């Protein structure tokens, strides 16, 4: 998913109850599991939400994370999305200080990355980019050359490739 070692993506299907997110994040916190990013969203089933967590750890840690998360009463399923079998996407918004002297240069980079400029004024612009986390990392590396005013990433959203559906009971 990214070039970094031991990054793992978990897709957790949970009951759409208030407090579920607190339970999952409390569990991670209590047991010292790392959270790199976390997204929560609806699914096609109104009773189920999907929590996508990017975490870090070796196989033993990952096994514990999955087992402990499965133990929560409101967890329906936990799926480890492996890099080669899954699709990872993230959305980036980044605001860069840019006057006429650097604007064209930035536009050139955006074109290569197929990023969109979604806001523009005399002194700054906002770029929107969707893609795999490593693509976004690469784009941000390029943007470090400029004066970044603010940035925000959504965190990873992910699905397994192919026709599989990770069963909701």
């Amino acid at each position, binding site marked *: 998913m990214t070039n970094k070692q031991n990054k793992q993506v978990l897709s957790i299907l949970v009951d759409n109850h208030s*407090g579920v997110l*607190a339970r999952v994040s409390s569990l991670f916190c*209590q047991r010292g599991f790392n959270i790199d990013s976390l997204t929560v969203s609806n699914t096609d089933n109104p009773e189920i939400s999907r929590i996508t967590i990017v975490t870090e750890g070796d196989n*033993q840690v990952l096994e*514990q994370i999955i087992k*402990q998360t*499965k*133990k*929560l*009463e409101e967890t329906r399923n936990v799926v480890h999305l492996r890099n080669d079998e899954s699709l990872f996407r993230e959305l980036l918004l980044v605001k860069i200080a840019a006057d006429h002297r650097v604007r064209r240069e930035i536009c050139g980079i955006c074109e290569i990355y197929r990023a969109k400029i979604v806001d523009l004024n005399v002194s700054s612009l906002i770029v929107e980019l969707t893609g795999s986390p490593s693509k976004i990392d690469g784009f941000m590396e390029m943007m470090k050359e400029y004066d970044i005013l603010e940035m925000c990433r959504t965190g990873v959203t992910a699905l397994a490739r192919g026709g599989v559906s990770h069963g909701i009971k």
Partner: protein
Amino acid sequence: MILNGSQILAEVLVEQGVDTLFGYPGGAILNICDALYDYRDEIKQYITAHEQGASHAADGYARATGKTGVVLATSGPGATNLVTGIATAYMDSVPMVAITGNVGTSLIGRDSFQEVYIAGITMPITKHNFVVRRVEELADTLRAAFRIANTGRKGPVLVDIPKDVTAAKCEFVPGKKQGNTYVTHVSDEEIETAADIINKAERPFIYFGGGVGSAKACQDLRELMQKAEIPAAHTLMAAGIVGCDEPLNLGLMGMHGRLSANKAADKADVMIAIGTRFSDRVALNTEKFAKDATIIQIDIDPSEVNKNVAVDYSIVGDVKDILSRLLPLVDEKKHTPWIEQINQWRGEDKKPVDDPTVLKPHQIMAEISRQAGENAIYVTDVGQHQMWAAQYCRHLHSRSFLTSGGLGTMGYGYGAAIGAKIAFPNRPVIHITGDGSFHMNMNECCTAVSYNVPVITVIMNNSVLGMVRQWQTVFYNRRYSGSEPERVTDYAKVAEGFGAKGYKCENLAQFTKALEMALKDNCPVWIECVIDREEKVLPMIPGGGTIDDVMEE
């Protein structure tokens, strides 16, 4: 029929087979208290001195009976006072349903009087918890709480009920008692693989824990040990699950376990871990624990596999189901050289020396077991006395040694002993405590007196916080910081002040006589035993250590 929330609560409790309730009243549960008044013939309520005592009483009741313990408290401080008791039950997998009142739904989130977010506070120390926001959800939520508490690996569940929900009315439809809905999915191949490993072993060893008792698999375990001649040692939680009269039972293992038991674990070629979780008090050094053994783990909780110690083979499921299927596949055989080796180690175990002129901890425990007999239930607090009770009482039956193993809760014992004695009024219940632990919750004496629950409390008084002080002696160059509070409590007088009886003993003859009287007194009794503050719990292997690091004196 149309009932209000409080009546629905009472109806569901009766439906779930609850006839005993521990708790303490308060503003947010006034409606519930009022409804319970009408159910006082079906549900006997025990009001404790403090909600913590009620939570430990529900826990002790549950451990002694195997039923789900129920505790009721009001909002705010009532609820927070349950926290230690809930965490204690959680760490030791004790089925419990805690019911708390809360302020009305319109007041929630406004920092109202006696408002606290108890669902948030107890999230990491319950199997699950609920906030009931509509009376229509109440009955099924309570049923779910009983189901969850008692299914799979057992544990506490909290149900928080805002005050307006206890008054609101709705149609109540009677339901059924919730059983254990756990289903084991263990294949025959898994059982065969385990049997194969066991059958090839030359030096097999069983390490068993409290899960064997929860699964009611004590007899199955004993049969397995006998059929294949496998020696076994137990964790603190499993004292009594196989009686100490069983020759293959090597006794307690771990930090303060017998050296022979720890040596057997160290030298085994196959270790079968059953209903246990490789805690840091047993698997002191996770790298070197059972270093020569192929480890098979049998447990109901998949998250316990490979958590602390990497195992070679595991079967996840109901321990009783697994053991009963394993038994026919295990060869009947002898491991004579191995057993002889272990017996030699057992002969080398250092035994404490008797001295009738003073009170020696091991002699106190032996005398308690002699007089209380085989029906006794031992309940401890936490510290040196707890380890002595584990080491030297005669543990013959499961559910008869109640102790806070996981959380190590000082102050657990008195409430738990009261709960156990209420469950079994005809069995002697001996609460073994230390002067440190006992000061935490001795106030529950008033509960024992109010309901005439004749628990016998044996206070091992060394005037210091013995376990802390022992560690300071060994690891901190005798710098006794905070462990010598120099209290001058006159226990006999305090007992009398509560309306109980008190005795003080300084030698074995006095103790023998005091205990004889206490067993006949039929009222709550305290027996203070003055012991030397230099008494230590031995043997001892420090955390992270191995049998090479054992201290025997």
